[in-house]
């Protein structure tokens, strides 16, 4: 491609322009064949775009702009009284108001797509031609090794290249080819790379300070390069670029609008934005709380004179279109005849987003601030309410008019951001952290993972203020790491059944055993932790509900705690006090990991891949050790069995323990000298970072040794019951659910070690934890044996035997009383007589259960109410 000579105007020329002259700053984007090419006006880049090419109009850049308006000199005219000043077609020479709009848009006149003028940013030494040259050099010359050198210079850890060639790849050329092959139009530009490439250092500053001017220049360079590379590839006969195919590709590129989307600036807190940031490129983070529907944003208005049919196009200027007051044609000049022709106007997509500070960015004791974002074109509808974003954009401040119909203004300004780049933060988080910082952190975390006492250290660091409870902490620690989610690829449909990797933990125990404190702590460190109390939350709070958006009056779905904690941990306190409706939702969440909604015409299933950490109090608030666990917790066994680990946290009396506890407490509450236990512990942030890292990067798989051990452990767990000397009672000790739990726990343990494989030691620890948890939870209080049947059906073997005895005795008693002929026996009498026969007290609840079963089987009938109840045998029973 030939490139015509470039003429560089010295910047001083431009400085000579009288600042107070009628504004030169109106958009010069349009290129008119008739206008004087030598006007000392900065011409818009887009004016050089080739034939057939759409105008490069970016909402983010041009929306409110005065294009190449000098900054410092810098004045913006907001008070245009002269009609002609508002017509963008005027380039200040007043020469070129076109007779009609036709040539402007449909037939741009520039015959080549090469830049033939120079621009400079007024009042600065920035020369746009030079900027173009630099950027071209950058795209053609940047290699990863520069970045590595830069990072080392900043004392940031770098990732080693796998081979020397990797460091020498011309990254952006490769990327441009990918862009061409995939038909994209956006180039995401990491601004740190600009800093890292020595010849282009100053581009970074220019881009940050004058995005308005520099970004369009970069767009232009990008397009030129796209064409050049395509051309080169065609010459070289690269696959897919030969002959006609190549021509087509090139024509395709010509027709496209390419956009450079810079990112990678350090984010600033949105409350620190101040006037000096106006029109600069900045980066902020936040949470989307509201997004308007897509607004068709008029870019160019098309007016036609009703009298003489003369047409005029008016471009948007600072968010406003000035309607021409009279026909601009001197011969006509009728007043008030210009009418808008809607279907010949140009529109673009626009959306206004309200971005709120995230809780972690808000200073203590403050409420969060909010800023408005204007997003355009492809970025529209990219972010939904609830998303966390890192946004790069141009900060704008525009004066507020006292009255939209008036031209007078207040001395107040409203501010917003024209967005050029959006990055949605990953569910797991961490993705937004800069790579370098990540590398540094990783190195630290990997070093940490090599500590031999890692497991103990992490467990100890979890809720350090809570006394003892080592195994509970270890269980919760593994829950935070989680097992791996598995999809069975084979099997029905696209993906077969999903096996959850999330570990659910239930704590049951006496009041005042710091269960809530543990929950609160986990909520703090867990990624996407949500804390809710079973008592206060209705089904709505835990799942999702449908509301009407105040702006759009449309129905919108708002997520509840479970959906919000997708990919995290949902802590539910007072689990036993939860309503039945909510609990039924949990059945679905805990196995299928989805929440189904059918409300107000919206039927959908939302993901809720969440682990649940729940705490419950025993039924009579104090745990009754004489009763089986299912009688102590008022929860359906189906739900209990969905917890991988169930811990009983009981308050025991023991002199030495008590003394230590008292010492601890007195020290804490009266002496102001909290005892940290003298151990080193990991700060909360580090622990949290470690867990995040492990969850994001490690997906361990079972090795054969570990599988064997799992099988062996499972068999032995089941065998505990089978090998009973009194073999008559086969008790179920472990079920496949427990095997699955064991796998999950082993995976979590391996993940904690940052290991790629699940090894023997992982399985052993998982089994130990399971045993510990089972020992305390599934121990049959009567026999002292582990009995999973207790959890799965609610009755243990011992209890079942007891019931059978009771049933037998009852039937004998009824037969003795005259069978079906008699009136039956009083309820109370039966219990009394049974009690006389038995060595242990007859439990009224147990008795009622037996009666219910017999009644259901149709053997006996119960008549009467309350104390007057009579039990009698049914005819033929």
């Amino acid at each position, binding site marked *: 491609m030939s490139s015509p000579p470039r003429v560089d105007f010295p910047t001083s020329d431009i400085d000579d322009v009288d600042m107070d002259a009628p504004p030169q700053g109106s958009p010069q984007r349009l290129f008119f064949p008739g206008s004087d090419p030598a006007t000392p006006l900065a011409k818009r880049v887009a004016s050089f775009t080739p034939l057939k090419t759409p105008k490069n109009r970016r909402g983010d850049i041009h929306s409110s702009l005065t294009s190449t308006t000098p*900054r*410092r000199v*810098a*004045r*913006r*005219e*907001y*008070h245009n009284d002269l009609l002609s000043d508002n017509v963008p077609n005027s380039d200040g020479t007043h020469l070129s108001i076109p007779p009609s709009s036709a040539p402007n848009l449909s037939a741009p006149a520039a015959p080549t797509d090469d830049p033939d003028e120079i621009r400079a940013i007024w009042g600065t030494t920035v020369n746009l031609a030079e900027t173009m040259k630099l950027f071209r050099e950058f795209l053609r010359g940047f290699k990863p090794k520069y970045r590595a050198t830069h990072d080392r210079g900043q004392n940031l850890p770098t990732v080693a290249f796998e081979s020397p060639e990797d460091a020498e790849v011309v990254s952006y050329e490769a990327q441009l080819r990918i862009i061409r092959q995939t038909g994209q139009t956006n180039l995401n530009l990491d601004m740190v790379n600009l800093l890292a490439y020595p010849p282009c250092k100053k581009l970074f500053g220019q881009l940050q300070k004058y995005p308005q001017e520099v970004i369009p220049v970069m767009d232009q360079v990008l397009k030129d390069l796209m064409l050049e590379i395509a051309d080169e590839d065609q010459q070289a006969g690269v696959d897919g670029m030969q002959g006609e195919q190549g021509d087509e590709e090139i024509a395709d590129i010509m027709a496209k609008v390419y956009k450079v989307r810079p990112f990678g600036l350090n984010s600033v807190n949105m*409350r620190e*934005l101040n*006037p*000096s940031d106006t029109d600069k490129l900045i980066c902020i983070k936040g*949470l*989307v*709380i*509201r997004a308007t529907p897509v607004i068709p944003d008029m870019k160019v208005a098309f007016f036609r004179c009703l009298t003489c049919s003369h047409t005029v196009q008016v471009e948007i200027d600072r968010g406003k279109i000035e309607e021409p007051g009279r026909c601009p044609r001197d011969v006509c000049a009728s007043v008030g005849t210009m009418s808008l022709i809607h279907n010949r106007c140009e529109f673009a997509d626009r959306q206004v987003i*309200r971005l*709120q500070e*995230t*809780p972690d960015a*808000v*200073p*203590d*004791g*403050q*409420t*969060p*601030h909010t800023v408005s974002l204007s997003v355009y074109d492809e970025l529209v509808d990219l972010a939904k*309410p609830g998303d966390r974003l890192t946004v790069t954009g141009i900060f704008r*401040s525009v*004066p*507020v*008019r*006292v009255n939209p119909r008036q031209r007078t203004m207040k*001395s107040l*300004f*409203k501010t917003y951001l024209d967005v050029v780049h959006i990055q949605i933060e990953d569910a797991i988080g961490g993705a937004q952290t800069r790579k370098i910082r990540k590398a540094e952190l990783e190195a630290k975390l990997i070093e940490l993972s090599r500590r031999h006492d890692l497991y103990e250290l992490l467990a100890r660091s979890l809720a350090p203020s809570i006394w003892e409870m080592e195994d509970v902490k270890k269980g919760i620690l593994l829950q935070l790491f989680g097992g791996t989610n598995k999809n069975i690829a084979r099997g029905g449909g696209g993906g077969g059944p999903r096996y959850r990797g999330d570990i659910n933990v239930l704590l049951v125990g006496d009041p*005042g055993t710091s269960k809530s404190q543990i929950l609160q702590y986990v909520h703090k460190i867990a990624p996407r932790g949500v*804390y809710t109390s079973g*008592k*206060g939350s*209705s089904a*709505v709070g835990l799942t999702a509900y449908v509301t009407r958006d*105040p702006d759009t009056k449309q129905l919108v779905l708002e997520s509840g705690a479970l959906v*919000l904690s997708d990919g995290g941990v949902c802590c539910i306190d007072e689990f036993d006090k939860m309503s039945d409706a909510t609990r039924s939702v949990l059945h679905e969440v805990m196995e299928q990991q989805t929440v189904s909604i059918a409300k107000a015409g919206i039927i959908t299933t939302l993901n809720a891949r969440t682990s649940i950490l729940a705490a419950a109090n025993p039924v009579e608030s104090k745990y009754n050790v004489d009763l089986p666990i299912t009688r102590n917790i008022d929860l359906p066994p189906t739900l209990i069995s969905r917890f991988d680990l169930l811990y009983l946290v009981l*308050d025991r*009396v023991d*002199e030495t323990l*008590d*003394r230590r*506890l*008292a*010492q601890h407490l*007195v020290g*804490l*509450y*009266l*002496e*102001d000298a*909290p005892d940290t236990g003298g151990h080193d512990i990991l700060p909360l942030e580090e622990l949290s970072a470690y867990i995040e890292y492990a969850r994001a990067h490690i997906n361990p798989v079972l090795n054969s040794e570990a599988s064997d051990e799992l099988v062996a452990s499972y068999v032995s767990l089941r065998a505990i019951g089978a090998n009973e000397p009194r073999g008559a009672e086969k008790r179920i000790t472990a079920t496949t659910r427990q095997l699955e739990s064991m796998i999950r726990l082993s995976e979590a343990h391996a993940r904690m070690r940052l290991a790629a494989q699940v090894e023997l030691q992982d399985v052993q620890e998982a089994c130990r934890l399971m045993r510990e948890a089972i020992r305390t939870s599934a121990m049959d209080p009567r026999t002292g044996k582990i009995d999973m049947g207790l959890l799965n059906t609610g009755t243990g073997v011992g209890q079942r035997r007891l019931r059978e005895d009771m049933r037998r005795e009852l039937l004998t008693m009824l037969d003795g009383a005259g069978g079906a002929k008699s009136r039956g026996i009083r309820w109370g009498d039966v219990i009394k007589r049974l009690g006389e026969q038995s060595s242990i007290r007859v439990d009224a609840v147990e008795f009622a259960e037996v009666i219910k079963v017999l009644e259901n089987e149709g053997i006996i009938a119960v008549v009467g109410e309350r104390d007057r109840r009579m039990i009698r045998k049914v005819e033929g029973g």
Partner: protein
Amino acid sequence: MVAVHAISEIADPRKVIQRIYDDDDDRLDGQCIHRLPSAVTKHFSDLFLRADDPRALDQLPSLDVSHPPESYTCGTLVRFRAMIQDTSLQNEMYLAKLSNDRCGGWGIQPAHGDRNFNVFDSDSLGTASIFWAVSVPAESPWRAAGFSRLDSTSFPVHQSSQPHKFPIPGAPHIGVRIKIYDSAGVENLHSTDVVTFVGIASSEPLSMEDDSSPEVPVLHVLCYQVDSASPIPANVDPSVREHVIKWISSEALGGDDDAAEWVLLQLTSKVHTRAIPLLPPSLTISRFPQPSSTDLIPTLSHVFTELIPQHLLIPLSLDLLNKTPFLPESKEEDLHSGYLQLPTGTTILLTESALQEGKLLETGITSVRAIQDVMNSQTVEYIFPFSSKFSFHTGLSMIVLSEGRKSAFFQTSVNVPLQCSSTTASLYKPKDELSLPPAEKIAIYRSYIVACKALSEKVQITEETSKHIQDDFVRRRQQDKSVTPDELIHLMKVARLLAASRLQDEVTIDVWEQAKELDRRRRVSIV
């Protein structure tokens, strides 16, 4: 001398700002307008916020319920003692440099056709922080009178334009948009902080962009001062304790001295640390007789109004719980207030006498939970869309009056059954039947409570007492398995407060035993 000078300042504060601007020597460096706000703050602080002369402020007219914003002409210099309600308002940019060498901000309007205003560069813009502040809610009249004259004006009762931004629905108050131009230190202004602002009264439409929106009062702040804790009164006689208990007991609790002592401990408690939760206890006075009519106010509330600076009575009813917000909530980016958005140090008296059978709705459940959260952890959660972590620290002392054995809704750390030896009517006697001690005595009572509060942070323990408490715990646990560690924690908290209420800075064995005895008597009476 100072006073004369100050009067001229009051007359036309904006002229003074311009003078300060003019006095800046190197005005040409462009940074002048950015130095102006701190110069203005300094100038007016030196005039009105004088440590050596706390009365300097009193020269200024006060903005309060009896002197509402409309009683002042636009541009008057006033003071406004207020609670910050909303800190989420976006900063505002204003033109700081007008033409003809005039400065902007503080509501200074550009002259018509000001050229600088039409053509500006970002260097001439300044930033103002915006807050919403309301008159201090639940403030006792004697306290408020200490800050302004409570004479009645001829103005009709002020109707706030933003009533949803005041914690107590229906209560007279004023709400003002606060604009602070000096950015130094604004990040230290928190929600529910009580601040005295000195500024220029004015008004503007609620919405910047919509002229038809209602006008709201605006205060362009010149200087401000966050309310610090009252000075600790010296030389308070510990014997005042008995007088205060006797007075509370005879006037409001039907002669039950124990209940009065618990009430006193409750009034003198405050948040000490959160790391190890040493928070104020919460108190239920159970078996508190029902009034003959539900709209009667317990005399205890009048007593509190006399004794403590901030007190709020919330007569709980299903309707109130279901309909009135307790938590501040951001709706459409406007932070609505709730009952619990109160300044630290407020004592809330909850009565359950108006409760009837009925259904507690979703809002009601949230409200009950919110109150319980304050009792348990002294935090108030502000509701923001898509966020669940905006939990704010607070310091509210809660007392519940319940007819039953315990409160219908709340788990309080202390439950004291009332042993009333007089008629029910005496518990509900109106304010004018209250037999007030002489004014100077009431003043001593008030400073005694302040002294106790201040001291409760400094209570220490000796090695010997510590050992005694530990042995005591182990021994009691051996004897009775139901003794829990929680009980030990509870007793230690009581002992702390008890020591402070005796104006001692140490928990002695004597105090410990008394705390145990006090608590034992309470437990016995529960059964």
